[in-house]
């Protein structure tokens, strides 16, 4: 202010001041932005980053709550124990199997549901509303519903059979429960993609003689590829964490434990924090690898699409 009064003709000076004020404004904005984010960031780091680092640390110790006196550094021996254990590998294989099959089925049924919600001529609101029901239901509740449905004598699906006492029929019921619950979420993500496909493009393809099937595969799918990949990534990482359904449906009996079940049992029943932490670290690394593979796919998908257009 005072400088402007001293040199009323100094236009440069005025610009300087304006710049200074602008940069002060920028600085204030930066400060405010960081300040507003700080609590959330601190919270998230304190409850995730710190424990996972602590888990890495614990995984190198014999931290057994039943033997508190023997908490000594054991190097990689916990990793050797876990990675040579058939229980771990059975659970790992099963978790992978459930993840791949349910992500695939969810994509197929999710796409069908998305198309129905997007295109139906009758009762669109009704369909969209009721499709949210599985999403709204607590996973444990849905799991109990399936479990009782397949309980001998009680269930309407069971009759005299007891499918939850057999390994493979249990696995398929677990997959069914997973798929039932998450198809709507998948469908919503895909529907958001479908809404972005220009109607004119589909019409033009139709005039050129493309059948509905061709229009879907040649026009719609390439255009919504990003939505498909995002939805698949979300669901793959989510399916790998499968726990609730297995806990309620089989409790892990007949070799139906997922990696999360094994880690949980090890902690709660075994009270072995060293081994439990080792499993925690291994699960974390697996998730990171899956996510990286998807990110690679993303990277490859974008330029590829550019070439085709």
């Amino acid at each position: 202010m005072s400088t402007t009064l001293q040199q009323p003709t100094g236009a440069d000076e005025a610009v300087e001041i304006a710049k200074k004020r602008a940069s002060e404004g920028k600085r204030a904005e930066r400060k405010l932005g960081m300040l507003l984010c700080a609590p959330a960031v601190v919270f998230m780091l304190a409850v995730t980053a710190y424990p996972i680092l602590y888990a890495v640390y614990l995984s190198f110790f014999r931290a057994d709550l039943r033997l508190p006196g023997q908490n000594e550094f054991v190097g990689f021996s916990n990793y050797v124990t876990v990675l040579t254990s058939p229980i771990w590998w059975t659970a790992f294989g099963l978790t992978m199997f459930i993840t791949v099959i349910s992500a695939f089925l969810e994509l197929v049924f999710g796409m069908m549901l998305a198309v129905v919600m997007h295109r139906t001529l009758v009762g669109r609101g009704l369909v969209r509303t009721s499709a949210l029901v599985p999403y709204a239901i607590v996973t444990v509740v849905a799991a109990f519903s399936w479990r009782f449905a397949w309980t001998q004598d009680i269930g309407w699906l069971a009759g005299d059979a007891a499918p939850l006492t057999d390994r493979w029929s249990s696995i398929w019921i677990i997959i069914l429960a997973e798929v039932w619950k998450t198809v709507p979420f998948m469908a919503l993500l895909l529907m958001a993609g479908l809404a972005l496909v220009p109607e004119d493009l589909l019409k033009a393809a139709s005039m050129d003689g493309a059948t509905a099937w061709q229009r879907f595969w040649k026009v719609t799918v390439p255009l919504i590829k990003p939505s498909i990949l995002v939805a698949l990534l979300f669901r793959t990482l989510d399916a790998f964490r499968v726990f609730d359904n297995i806990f309620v449906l089989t409790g892990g009996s007949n070799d139906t434990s997922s990696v999360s079940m094994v880690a949980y049992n090890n902690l709660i029943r075994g009270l072995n924090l060293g081994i439990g932490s080792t499993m925690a670290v291994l699960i974390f690394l697996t998730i990171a690898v899956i996510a990286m593979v998807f990110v690679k796919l993303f990277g490859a998908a974008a330029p590829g699409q550019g070439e085709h257009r």
Partner: protein
Amino acid sequence: MSAATATPAKKAGWAAVDLVVLLYAFIPVIWIVSLSLKGDDTLNDGNFLVRKPTGEAYSEIFANEDFVRALINSIGICVIATFVALLLGTMAAYAIARLEFPGKRTIVAMSLLISMFPQIALVTPLFKIETAIGIFDTWLGLILPYITFALPLAIYTLSAFFREIPWELEKAAKMDGATPYQAFRKVIAPLAMPGVFTTAILVFIACWNDFLFAISLTSTNSARTVPAAMSYFTGATTFEKPVAAVAAAAVIITIPIVIFVLFFQRRIVAGLTSGAVKG
């Protein structure tokens, strides 16, 4: 355009498809409701629909102290976690949607990472940490992880909503002589409320749904939530699950959420897709 060219046959076809969707969505729900209304005499009849509905299971479950306590825990823990997550999430989302500052991208990436984080990887270390600082088996011990996993969802959904708000209106109101507080209360708050409300529903459902933390970080009914308590219900014999009671508990924690979701269907769809697609 397609509505105009719809033939009755096409309409009937779509109606049939709609019916399949309805059956898919409602069959497990109708089954558990029906099961919860069965009495001891009809429990083993294997019928999908109940023939002689009774409220026995419901009176039994509300007489069960563990269940009532778990219901209070569930409501209390989820409401507090939702409130705090929304408060912190709104601040962060406002900054992300409107301000330029260093580390913004890192924060967005970090919340994406956390939303995909395997919760089981936290259970073992959190168990140890919470036991050490004395918050194991308390409300706080569950509220903290709930807030953490709700925050990414809140930040994503809210920042997507906040980007849509016409913020120029705030300036316009100030030019018309409104104080900053008035501009916020009369112009911005009403525009932001639907987004905040929708996010609150999504966050609450996410907390309400949790099972893994609830079962690992509690050991008595002092903090155990309903999903965890349900897996501990015991019947007359220890090996048998009290089927009708579990079904009744399931219905009690499900129906309010379902009604809520059906009522706010449009907003929830908008919230779920906006948050996820931008990610």
